[in-house]
């Protein structure tokens, strides 16, 4: 009798432990998923390599779906040594590119990286990029954390029609 009680108590304890572990895992996964969903990425592409140039640019639309402001802190990719954010400013017919430390994405708003405007500058290409390829861009946000996006490579012809 005593042995039976001990066994069932042990089973209950095991049951609790497993349930607690499952609950914690599920909460962790939910939070993780929610964080990733904070920022939506669309309309994204990367310019094809031009021979002789190791520079390229990435463009995309970032939507902050949360109720809190967020900031794009940095980005990296295996395809280039460095990634920087630049804004193109045209003043009296003269264009100047301004380096941006980070890019604010206000709550509920979107920010666009577009040709002739703010763009993601990809510096020192490590491999050739051809139309039809995809490159993985890691975007690091203050709140949303890491958002990884596989962006298609487009030729210049595909970008300008």
């Amino acid at each position, binding site marked *: 009798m005593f042995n039976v009680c001990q066994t069932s108590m042990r089973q209950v304890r095991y049951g609790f432990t497993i349930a607690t572990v499952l609950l914690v895992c599920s909460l962790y996964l939910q939070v993780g998923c929610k964080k990733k969903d904070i920022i939506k990425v669309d309309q994204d592409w990367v310019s094809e390599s031009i021979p002789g140039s190791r520079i390229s640019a990435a463009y995309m639309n970032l939507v902050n779906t949360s109720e809190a402001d967020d900031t794009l802190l940095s980005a990296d990719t295996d395809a280039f040594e460095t990634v920087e954010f630049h804004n193109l400013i045209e003043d009296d*017919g003269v264009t100047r590119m301004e*380096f941006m430390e980070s890019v604010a994405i206000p709550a509920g708003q979107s920010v666009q990286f577009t040709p002739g405007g703010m763009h993601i500058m990809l510096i020192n290409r490590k491999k050739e990029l051809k139309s039809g390829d995809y490159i993985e861009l890691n975007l690091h946000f203050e709140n949303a954390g890491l958002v990884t996006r596989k962006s298609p490579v487009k030729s210049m012809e595909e970008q*300008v029609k």
Partner: protein
Amino acid sequence: MGIFIITGAWSCKTESPKLEILDTLGGDFTLTDQNGKAFNLKDVRGKAVLLFFGYTSCPDVCPLTLAKFNAAYKKLGGSADQVKTIFISVDPQRDKPEKLKQYLSYFKYEPIGLTGTPEELTKVAQLFKVLFVKRLTGTSSGYLFDHSTATFLIDKQGRVRHLFGQNDRPDTIATVISVLLKAG
């Protein structure tokens, strides 16, 4: 190295191209082409010319401008062979003729790439009243250029007739070129 020049106050609007002769801009000059040979603007007399200042390490405006010309050439169809594009690099330190040759080979309509000494480039920029200033970024991009993004449309007699801006689409560029070609 900073290269200066005067900024021109011009309008890049193209709604109704008047194609007046803009005689305060332009003129003949000699630079070195992508094959390492001397090139004078007179060498393309008899053709309409799209002339643009840029550099091959420019990630956005320069390749997009050249791509827009590419699209405009397509729209011009049979008239396209009456038009030449000239890309003048303002970055002689990095854009040697061989590099220009490689870079421009990407664009199907065979643009002419030009470079020169800083002094030569400064003189040409003065002719067209364009500005280009080398600016150290302090980041991995090394240095960039602030530069005028206007494209000069030059007629078959070598005179500047119109300026295109960054917002002009290939359709507009092709239309204005057609008007110029029809005018002779």
